[in-house]
C-alpha cells in the first residue's frame, strides 16, 4: 500500500474487524471483536455502559490514537485494507470515516465556514458555494439556513447544529459516518428529524451509530450489534444481525435480557 492512499477495493463489507482487542494501558477494554458491517445500511451498536461501544466506534476512525495509553491489536479493514497499517495516513482515514458526536460541536464560525473549512484544508478545488448547498441539502438544513449562511453556527438550535455537523462531515465525501449518541442532547422532534436524515444518508453512506436508546436502535437501524461486558470487564460483541430479528428473537440470552430490561 502506498503512503497516504487507501485503495478502494470492492468488498462485501463496509468495514470489518478481525480479532480486535483494545487496551488502555494494561486494561483490556474490548476483546476479540469480529464484526462485519453491512454497507450503506444503518448499523446500531447497543449495550450497557462500559461495554466498549464508544471505544470500538472510535477505533473505526482511529480517534483512539489521541489517547496515549490506547493501543489496538488485530485488524480493522476498510474495503479490505487495514486502517492500522503503518503506511496508512490516519488523517485520510478520518476523511473517509467521519464522526458526529453526542454534543453538537460546530466550529465557532459561520454556517458556511463550518462546511468550507474542512474541504479547503483537504485541497478542494471545486465551487465552494455549490458544495455548501449540496451538503446542507443532504443534511436537510438548507431551507432553514440558506438566507443566513454567514450567521454564526452557534446561533442555531441544538438539532440544527447537529445537522450542520453532519453537513460538515459529508462535505468531505466520506464513505462511512460514525455517530456517537447523536441525539441524546436533542428533544424528541429534533431526534426524529435526525433519524429521518440518517435514513436518507444511508442511501449513499454506511452509518454506524452508538446509542443508549434501544427504541431508537429498533426504530432507526437496519442492523444491530449488541455488546456486553464479559466477566473480566472487557467488552465483547454478543451478536450482530438484522434489527427486526434482534428485537423479536435474539439468539443469545444476554441480548434477550438486555433488550427486555431484565438486565442485572
Amino acid at each position, binding site marked *: 500500500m502506498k503512503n497516504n492512499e487507501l485503495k478502494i477495493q470492492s468488498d462485501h463489507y463496509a468495514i470489518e474487524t478481525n480479532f480486535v482487542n483494545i487496551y488502555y494501558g494494561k486494561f483490556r477494554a474490548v476483546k476479540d471483536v469480529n464484526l462485519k458491517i453491512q454497507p450503506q445500511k444503518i448499523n446500531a451498536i447497543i449495550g450497557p455502559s462500559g461495554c466498549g461501544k464508544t471505544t470500538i466506534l472510535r477505533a473505526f476512525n482511529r480517534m483512539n490514537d489521541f489517547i496515549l495509553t490506547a493501543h489496538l491489536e488485530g485488524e480493522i479493514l476498510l474495503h479490505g485494507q487495514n486502517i492500522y497499517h503503518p503506511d496508512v495516513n490516519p488523517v485520510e482515514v478520518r476523511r473517509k470515516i467521519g464522526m458526529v458526536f453526542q454534543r453538537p460541536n460546530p466550529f465557532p464560525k459561520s454556517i458556511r465556514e463550518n462546511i468550507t473549512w474542512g474541504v479547503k484544508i483537504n485541497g478542494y478545488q471545486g465551487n465552494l458555494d455549490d458544495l455548501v448547498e449540496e451538503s446542507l441539502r443532504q443534511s436537510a438544513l438548507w431551507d432553514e439556513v440558506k438566507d443566513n449562511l454567514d450567521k454564526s453556527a452557534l446561533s442555531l438550535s441544538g438539532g440544527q447544529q447537529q445537522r450542520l455537523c453532519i453537513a460538515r462531515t459529508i462535505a468531505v465525501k466520506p464513505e462511512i459516518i460514525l455517530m456517537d449518541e447523536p441525539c441524546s442532547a436533542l428533544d424528541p422532534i429534533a431526534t426524529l428529524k435526525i433519524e429521518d436524515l440518517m435514513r436518507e444518508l444511508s442511501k449513499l453512506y454506511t452509518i454506524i451509530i452508538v446509542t443508549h436508546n434501544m427504541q431508537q436502535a429498533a426504530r432507526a437501524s437496519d442492523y444491530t450489534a449488541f455488546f456486553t461486558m464479559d466477566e473480566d470487564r472487557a467488552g465483547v460483541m454478543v451478536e450482530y444481525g438484522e434489527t427486526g430479528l434482534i428485537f423479536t*428473537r435474539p439468539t443469545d440470552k444476554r441480548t434477550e435480557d438486555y433488550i427486555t430490561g431484565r438486565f442485572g
Partner: protein
Amino acid sequence: MPRENLDKQIQQIEDEILVLGSMVEEAVFNSIAALKNRDEKKSHDVIIRDEKINEKRYAIENAIMILMATQSPFAHDLRRMSAMLIVANELERMGDYAKGIAKTNLRLGISDTPIPIKEIEKMAELGTNMLQRALTAFVEEDEKSAIKIPKEDDAVDDLFNSAYRTIVNSMIANPSVIDQASLVLWVVHNLERMADRVTNICERTIFIRTGELLEFDASDDETDSLDEMF
C-alpha cells in the same frame, strides 16, 4: 426485579384470557345441551351471552395495545403480547361458533330431523377439553404440551367425518329433510373448526418460546370440501 410491573400486567391479561376461555367453554356446552334437548330458551341465552364474550375480547385487546404503547416490548415480551392478541381473537371466534350452533337450534324449530347427537356431544367434549389444556399450556408457555395437543384433533376430525356421512345419508334417504339436515352440518362444521382453532392456540405457544411459527397440518377430510361449499 426490573420490569416487575410489566410482568404483573401481562399476568393480569393472561388471567383474563383464561376467563374468556371459560366463557367460551360454557357457551359451547350450553349450545350443545340446548340442541340435544331442543331448548330454545337456552339457545337464546347463548346468543345473548355472546355479547359478553365479544366485550371481554375487546377489553383484552385494548389492554394489550396499551401495554405495547407504553412498555416498548421486545423479543419474548413482544411475542407474548402479539400471541395474546391472536389467542383472544381465536377464543372470540370459538364463541361465535357456539352462537352459530345456538342459532341453528332455533332455525331447526320443531323439526324432527335426525341429529347425530352422540358424535356432536363427543366432539364438543374433546374440543373443550383440548381448549382447557391448550390455554393452560399457553399461559405456562408449555411447549411440550403445545406440540402434543394438536394430535388430538384427529379424533375430532374422525367424529366429524362420521357425523357428516350420517347427515348426508339421511339426506339421500329422505330428500325432504335436506334443508334441515344442512343446518345440522353447520353444527358439526363449527365443532370441527373449534378444534382447529385450539391447534392455532398451540402454535402460538410454541411461537412465544421459539419465535418460529410451526404450522400443524390439518388432516385430509371432508372439511376441505365443506369449507369450499360454504
